[in-house]
């Protein structure tokens, strides 16, 4: 903070009058492609998992040398999506247990294409869960026909990440078929395990460890400024 203040002291700094402030706000919103300022609820904390992860990406991006080609530097827009719906299958009626997640990709910037997407879910330790057990975590994209498409298996300790680039592209091309993801946890013997009891944090878990999806976009063409 003190470094920032020192840096900013070299700049022209005077308080804007209300007209100047309105014009400045209008101009910046236009650059951001927004018709009005977003109004997120104050209760939504910046310490939540997605904002913290995105702030880390922002800092990495800001410290990157210009001209260095990397995965991150190629992205024009990166969006994190909160989990809209999470359903846990009733274990009483079904043998198989899973968690279902949904992400709304309809608000993506126009004219941008997906270069990568990740589904991030946190795993914590659960004291009541037996140790020394290898678990297989599998993620399926839910299709209308309920036919599984992409499967990833990951052995993770605290943070688990699934590459769902193809899935998010499908959702982008066919928003009607966005029926979410289904996550299964199984033992090596094929036995079904409740994802919650295995330590996978869901929508009702601690804010700092809730699952989310991150999508990287690249502008397919030069952005066009809104005509005013």
């Amino acid at each position: 903070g003190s470094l920032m203040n020192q840096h900013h002291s070299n700049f022209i700094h005077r308080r804007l009058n209300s007209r100047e402030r309105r014009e400045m706000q209008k101009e910046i919103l236009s650059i951001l492609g927004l018709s009005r300022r977003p109004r997120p609820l104050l209760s939504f904390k910046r310490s939540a998992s997605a904002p913290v992860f995105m702030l880390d990406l922002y800092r990495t991006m800001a410290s990157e040398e210009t001209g260095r080609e990397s995965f991150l530097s190629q992205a024009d827009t990166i969006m994190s999506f909160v989990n809209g719906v999470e359903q846990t299958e009733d274990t009483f009626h079904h043998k198989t247990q899973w968690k279902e997640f949904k992400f709304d990709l309809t608000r993506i910037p126009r004219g941008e294409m997906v270069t990568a997407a990740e589904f991030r879910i946190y795993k914590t330790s659960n004291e009541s869960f037996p140790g020394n057990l290898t678990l297989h975590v599998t993620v399926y994209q839910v299709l209308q026909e309920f036919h599984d498409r992409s499967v990833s298996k990951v052995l993770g300790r605290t943070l688990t990440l699934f590459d769902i680039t193809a899935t998010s592209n499908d959702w982008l091309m066919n928003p009607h078929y966005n029926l979410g993801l289904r996550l299964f946890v199984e033992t090596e013997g094929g036995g079904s395990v409740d994802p919650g009891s295995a330590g996978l944090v869901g929508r009702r878990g601690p804010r700092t460890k809730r699952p989310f999806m991150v999508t990287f976009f690249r502008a397919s063409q030069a952005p066009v400024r809104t005509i005013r």
Partner: protein
Amino acid sequence: AANRRKGRKKYGERPSCERLPGTFAGYNGREQTQVCKRHDLYVSFRELDWQDWIIAPEGYEAFYCDGDCSFPLGSHMNASNHAIVQALVHLMKPDAVPKPCCAPTKLSATSVLYFDDKYNVILKKYRNMVAKSCGCQ
């Protein structure tokens, strides 16, 4: 100096890249003669009352280019070859050909991180957005 003032008045009357409408009014005589260079303006998101939805940065370093591109174009003006020719032709035909523009010569990217209404977080990168250096073009 008298001739320069006369010439300046003529340029104020027709569209030119030297002065954009609105930027001319606030200048005093001394500032008008300054050479083309980068100026700094800090836009604070705190002052705009946008802290609830813009996560980072705290403000925006909005550099802009301004100043005179008069003959002879010194090395400090970071002039392009075209600007030198433009300045010479302007000397020959001051009423027909405008002076070179004072414009960014090198631009860099900047990013902004913000919430939308649905609590999604958006990180937008704007390439070629921040003026790193200015020069006569």
